[in-house]
């Protein structure tokens, strides 16, 4: 793909693209649509009592993880916080095992013992799924440290939110990552609200992409609602970090349509604001529109993907509903590991 990234402007929502193959287009459209439909189903299931506890939905932010993922290579790792359903799906984990984990069944990725916030799939290089805000940031730097130590030509991508970006351990991680040239890309998903507190009310200087500057980490602000902008920025960051130059920082300006979690009534923002994003800046609709306008894909291609996603999600829901809970003795397993 050959794209140019731009900052978001109302009149010019998608950058000019020279080439993207139909195959690549549909793959990424599928990835984003799958996340969207998965999250919608998860929201419904939560309302029906099939999912309990905390459930943080990624609806609206799909282009961030999809664009980042499109730039990654085999063996690269991702780590994020508790808003992690989109990330584990982007890493390639089958949706039925993710939904089963949300349902607390033994067939879930964490065998039902983690839940929504603690999804893991190490085979697909997804390292969680972490419940404590910003705890994943030094962990991500540590995964990059291990890659460097083992002479792997891989990178670790560490996602965090605008809320997490004020945590001290983030800056401790920036310092070490820069000092030791760790192959880590920090992606700040700035959806403008840490739970109910807007960036304006929590953050003294809100240009997050500049936060790495005191540590010598280059940073860029990206239109996170635009798949191509994300992809292009990630490619640049990837080349930089993978070549041994050290960490890179990307601030993705994005938006979540739903509340912070399922228990958030969302009184801190207006319906007008949410609708503006849904109508003008929806990442999936705009991507689709672009593909059709530029004749990369047809309406039928799009319908086919939509049908495929529907089928995959139906299977995931059936599978999860029919999976058993863990057997009682599982209460006691995995507290400690046996020596091999």
């Amino acid at each position, binding site marked *: 793909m050959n794209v140019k990234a731009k900052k978001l402007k109302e009149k010019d929502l998608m950058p000019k693209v020279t080439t993207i193959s139909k195959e690549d287009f549909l793959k990424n459209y599928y990835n984003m649509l799958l996340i969207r439909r998965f999250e919608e189903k998860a929201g419904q299931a939560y309302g029906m009592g099939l999912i309990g506890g905390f459930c943080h939905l990624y609806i609206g932010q799909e282009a961030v993880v999809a664009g980042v993922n499109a730039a990654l290579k085999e063996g690269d*790792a991702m*780590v994020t916080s508790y808003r992690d359903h989109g990330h584990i799906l982007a890493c390639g984990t089958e949706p039925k095992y993710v939904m089963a984990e949300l349902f607390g069944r033994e067939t*879930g*990725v*964490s*065998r*039902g*013992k*983690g839940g929504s916030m*603690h999804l*893991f*799939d*190490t085979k697909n290089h997804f*390292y*969680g*799924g*972490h*419940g*404590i805000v910003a*705890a994943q*940031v*030094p*962990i*991500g*730097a*540590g*995964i*990059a*440290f*291990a*890659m460097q*130590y*083992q002479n792997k030509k891989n990178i*670790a991508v560490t996602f965090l939110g605008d809320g997490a970006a004020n945590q*001290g*351990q983030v*800056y*401790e*991680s920036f*310092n*070490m990552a820069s*000092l030791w040239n760790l192959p880590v890309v920090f992606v700040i998903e700035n959806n403008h609200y840490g739970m109910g507190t807007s960036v304006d009310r929590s953050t003294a200087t809100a240009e997050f992409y500049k936060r790495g500057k005191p540590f010598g980490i280059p940073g860029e602000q990206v239109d996170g609602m635009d798949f191509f902008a994300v992809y292009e920025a990630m490619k640049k960051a990837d080349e930089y970090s993978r070549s041994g130059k050290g960490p890179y920082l990307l601030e993705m300006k994005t938006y979540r349509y739903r509340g912070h979690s399922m228990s958030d009534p969302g009184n801190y923002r207006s319906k007008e604001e949410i609708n503006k994003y849904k109508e003008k800046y929806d990442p999936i609709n705009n991507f689709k529109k672009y593909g059709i306008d530029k004749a990369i894909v047809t309406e039928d291609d799009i319908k086919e993907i939509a049908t495929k996603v529907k089928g995959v999600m139906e299977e995931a829901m059936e599978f999860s509903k029919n999976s058993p809970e863990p057997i009682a003795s599982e209460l006691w*397993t*995995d*507290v*400690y*590991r*046996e*020596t*091999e």
Partner: protein
Amino acid sequence: MAKITVRDALRDAMKEEMRKDDRVFLMGEEVAEYQGAYKVSQGLLEEFGTKRVIDTPITEHGFTGLAVGSAMAGLKPVVEFMTFNFAMQAMDQIINSAAKTNYMSGGQVQCPIVFRGANGAASRVAAQHSQCYASWYAHVPGLVVISPYDSTDSKALLKKAIQDPNPVIFLENEITYGYEFELNESEVDDIEIGKARIVKSGTDITVTCFSIMVEVVMEAAKILEKSGISVEVIDLRTLKPLDSETIINSVKKTNRIVSVEEGWSFCGITSEISALCVEQAFDYLDAEPGRVTAKDVPLPYAANLEKLALPSVEDVCEMVKKTCYKA
């Protein structure tokens, strides 16, 4: 048998494990060029280089999380906390990331990491630098907690801790770093995590202890012997998993127990041992379980007050006599 300081025994344990396994590395403040704040890592930088012996910035929260991430991704870090007082900065990473992740991931995500450093009081370093964290860490499922006393146990158990696939809290003691003990090399491979040691056999009363309290208890046992009280001294060595079998078997023999720890009494290791004995050896007890712990105050600086605050030989003698109804 050759004598070796605890400090050198710990260094040798790390050296041997680092030679055996490339994935093992040491990180912490001043561990490399300074040769270790307490010189435990002396010589390691020279042998293994900067890739495997790493000086960190003073950022416990960050470097602990980084080490945990590296363990999840396949390495075997040894993280030195200059003292465990500073590890409180990193508590979330130790408990929520290291201890719990194997369980929360259904056994998928390993965390083979050792957190080691000085624990408990040193000398006159006052309240913020003197806390004993044994019971805090022993409380958490998922952590292994070890606190050896002599050189042979220190070497053997640090080696086993580094080999262990679980997160291990390895509690050392600044004062005993300089103590010399015979190194029983032939025993080193056989010493296991989770096994206490009866360091002195006795018949009248069982006294449990760990780390520097072993010295205090052994001193007290000598004095008590003269009063005709035969003390059986158990060095716990591992706090989690606790060797309850050895403790209970001893209590069944002696019918009395006093447990000793350097930390505070409320919710301490000694509370756990007392509960254990009442639950599992009630019919064997001829007296209520006794405890000797630090006084319930932050540790003061003045030399006389510090002595009063920490468990002394006199405190142990008094409690043993009381428990033997010979006060």
